[in-house]
Structure formats: structure tokens, C-alpha cells
């Protein structure tokens, strides 16, 4: 999809000796997936890469089965959004089965955040504390809300956002793939406008870099996504790099559509 530009970067950080994060994109299909694995030995990597590979495959396959931007009457969401959620649930079941079949994979899990761009919109499904942000004009906003103990406490007014940042238990996620059979993936849709920059990341960035620093960094680098993503990773590493850090950036360059051919994209045909 030439209407989009995508950059994915993953970094082991400073304190860890291996990278359990995984990122994947398919620009033609308008897809981006980021996962932050957890679990002993190398099981975290297995879980995160399974999630990314499987979800991208399920999405690419599923998107061929219905016309773009159709509404799913039952949920009020687009079919793309429902597919993103279902693919996430399927990945959960496959990860659980694998963990049960292979002793070395027991106890593995992963967060995931999935984006599908279509028809000037974006559908996002997520589980856990990997996030998506949107930079539109000079404003940075959260597209997803973490499934973490801290975030739940903030939502119920038990903690302030400031307390949350300083909390020692911000790494406790309440939902992840690979843990329980009936995982609930949150789904959000939004309008994707020309000029928008979407940023997906693992908590290796957001635990140590505040939103305002993310916003200023993204504004400073503007359309240079590669430099922007690298600058964010450098910020996290400068702050100690306690965890793996992954960043996917997606810039909307032109009106997004799967239907449009190369020429109509090029000449801006509607």
C-alpha cells in the first residue's frame, strides 16, 4: 500500500542479553504487528514471533474474503476490526496449545498490538501493555489503553498517572496471549488522515520515556520515520535500557485503500 510508509525497529536494550520482542509489517496489505514476549529461557521469543507471524498470515488471508470497509452489523465495527480481533484470539489458542505440547515452552506468553489500515481508517486490536499512539498535528494521543494492573488502578481512581509512572509494579500485565483460553482483545477504530503518524511500541520504551518526550522526539523528526524511531530507542537506552525496545512507525502519505491501484494512488484519484 503505497499510501503508507512503515518502519519497524527492535533493540535488545542495555540490561537484557536477548530480545523477546518481535515486530512485523506488510505494507502492501496495510498491516503492522508488534509483540513483547515473556517466559523463561527462549520461550518469550517463541511466543512473540508466533503471535506476529500467525496474525499477519491470518490477516492477509482474511482480508481477501470481504470487500473493504464493510460494517459488521452485530458489533458495529468494521469487518477488518473483527478480523483483527479474531486473529488475535486464534493466535492465543495456538500459543496455549504449543505451550502445552512443548515443555520448554510452558508458561510462555506475549502481549500484542495489531494495526490494519483500510479505507482511510485504522483498526487496532491489542492485548497487554504494548501500545499504539497517534501523532496528529502537534498532538500525541493514546489509541490503546494498557491491560496492566497499574492502568486498572488509575482507571478506578486508586492511583494518579504520576503515581503510576513511579510504581514498582508497572510491569504486571493483566491480559496476555498464551495465558487463558478466553482472552479478550480490545478493539479500537479511528480515522486515518493524511499526515497522521501512528507509533506502536513495547513497554521497553514507555516505562522509561514519558509521553511528552515521545511527542517532542516525533515532532522533531517529522516525516523521517527511521530517524524518529531510532531517536526513541536511543532515549530508552539513555534512560538505562532496562528492557527490550521495539517501535513501529506508520505514516499516512495519501488516502488509504486496498481497492485502489497504483495509478489512482499516484494521481490521487478517489
Amino acid at each position, binding site marked *: 500500500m503505497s499510501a503508507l510508509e512503515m518502519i519497524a525497529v527492535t533493540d535488545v536494550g542495555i540490561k537484557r542479553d536477548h530480545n523477546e520482542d518481535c515486530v512485523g509489517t506488510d505494507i502492501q496489505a496495510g498491516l503492522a504487528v508488534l509483540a513483547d514476549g515473556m517466559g523463561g529461557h527462549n520461550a518469550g521469543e517463541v511466543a512473540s514471533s508466533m503471535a506476529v507471524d500467525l496474525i499477519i498470515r491470518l490477516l492477509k488471508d482474511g482480508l481477501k474474503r470481504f470487500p473493504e470497509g464493510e460494517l459488521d452489523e452485530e458489533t458495529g465495527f468494521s469487518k477488518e476490526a473483527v478480523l483483527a480481533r479474531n486473529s488475535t484470539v486464534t493466535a492465543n489458542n495456538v500459543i496455549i496449545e504449543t505451550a502445552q505440547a512443548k515443555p520448554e515452552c510452558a508458561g510462555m506468553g506475549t502481549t500484542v498490538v495489531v494495526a490494519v489500515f483500510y479505507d482511510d481508517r485504522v483498526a487496532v486490536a491489542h492485548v497487554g501493555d504494548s501500545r499504539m499512539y497517534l501523532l496528529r498535528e502537534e498532538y500525541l494521543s493514546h489509541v490503546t*489503553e494498557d491491560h496492566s494492573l497499574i492502568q486498572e488502578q488509575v482507571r478506578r481512581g486508586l492511583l494518579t498517572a504520576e503515581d503510576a509512572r513511579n510504581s514498582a509494579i508497572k510491569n*504486571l500485565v493483566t491480559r496476555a496471549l498464551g495465558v487463558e483460553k478466553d482472552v*479478550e482483545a480490545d478493539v479500537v477504530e479511528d480515522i486515518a488522515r493524511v499526515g497522521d503518524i501512528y507509533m506502536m511500541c513495547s513497554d521497553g520504551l514507555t516505562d522509561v520515556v514519558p509521553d511528552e518526550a515521545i511527542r517532542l522526539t516525533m515532532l522533531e523528526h517529522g516525516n523521517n520515520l527511521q530517524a524518529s524511531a531510532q531517536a526513541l530507542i536511543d532515549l530508552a537506552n539513555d534512560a538505562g535500557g532496562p528492557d527490550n525496545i521495539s517501535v513501529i512507525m506508520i505514516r499516512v502519505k495519501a488516502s488509504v485503500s486496498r481497492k485502489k491501484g497504483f495509478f489512482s494512488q499516484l494521481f490521487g484519484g478517489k
Partner: protein
Amino acid sequence: MSTKLILKFKDTVISEFELNQEETTIGRKDENIIHIDNLAVSSRHARVLKIGKKVILEDLESTNGTLVNGQETSKHILKSGDVITVGKHTLTFVSLEDGVEVGKEEQAESDMDKTMIISASAREEMMGTKGSSDSSNSNAAAAPMLLGTVQYISGPLMGKVVDLKASLTNIGKGENCKIRVKGMLVGKQAAVITRRPTGYHIAYLEGMSKPKVNGKTLTSAPTTLKEGDIIELNDTKLEFFIRK
């Protein structure tokens, strides 16, 4: 690690400020954390950001500028002993580090940085909801999404209720808008209401005429909708409700 700024005027110490917040603002107006009432200081002059272990000074395009050790700067990573000049006042940056203590903390921190999944029962205990009458709420992880509606409270459609069941509800003069608003300056897609697991948000999208919520003009950054909020665009007024 403790960091502070010592405010001086002509070598006389006026006060000390612990930098225990993410952002510490410096300026002439009362609302600044470090408030310096002097005309040489801009209303929002500069700020100090704590990012991990770094402390960064940033000039906020002040009229008379911000100096660090005599050099004009727009952004500077502070080192202990740096002297910041704002108008006729100076702020000395002091960073106190107790080597042994910091080392210990880091060790403890690195174990806690690893992402862990918390079991449902432990979660309930930590949320303080276990066994309480609040049990319906304890399962917030899978709470059903709220259904919101808007009701026209002005114009020919007054009284009409529109359910916000869709993930996106467009407001504007375009044909694809569920809530149509006419007007020269109204954008085809003036605003969008998004339905999220955490509630409803509204954001401005396009057009000269910008929607307002409770009289406040919207921006491109989403605003959370609360029960009873009044959404206004041109001559259309809507009230937002949550279906009970």
C-alpha cells in the same frame, strides 16, 4: 538520586526546588512550579524535564532567552553544578548521588523491569476487590463496552436520539456522516466520535467550523465524552448519554 535547583538573585539564595516531577516549569506566572516575579522573565520561560536519569533544560521560546553557564541554549542536558540564568535570576543545578544506594536500587529494579503476567486471583487481591461487594466490577478486564447515544437538543431534529453503536460515528456535511450538519464552513467530515473499550472520544477532523464540547473548541487530540456533555457544531446541538 536526588536533584534540585537553587534559585538565587544577585548571589542571595531565595529558595530551593526539589526536581521530583517529570516536568518543572519556570516562569513569571503563578502557575509555574518555579515562579519568578520579574519582568525579565517570560510568563512561561523554560522547563526542566526528568527523563530516566537525565535532567533536560528546555527554553520555551522566552523573550530574553535562557543561559547555561553563560551560553544561550534552547535545550541542554544538565550536569551537577550547571548555572542557569533566567533574566536576572540564576538557578544552580545540584545532583546528589549516593553511589552505594543507587547501585542497590538498580539491581532490584532490573528484576522488576521484566514484564510479568499477573494471575486473575492475585490481580483481584491487589485491586482490593476480592470478596467485596464490588465483584461485578472486579472483572473489568472483560467488561462489556458501554453503549452511548446522542440526542438533538436544538433545530428541526430536536428530541431525536442516535445510538453510537458503530466504532466510528462521523459528524459533518458529507453524505457518509451519520450526524449531518449543514453550513458553509462545516467540513465534510468535521469530527468523529470513536467508541472504545474505555468509553467514547470525540476529535475534530476538518473544516473551518470547529465543533465544541461544553463550549470548549475541540482539537485534533481526542476528548473523552462524559454523560451530559453538550456537543455543538454550527446550529446543531447534541447531548451525550450512556445507555443504562
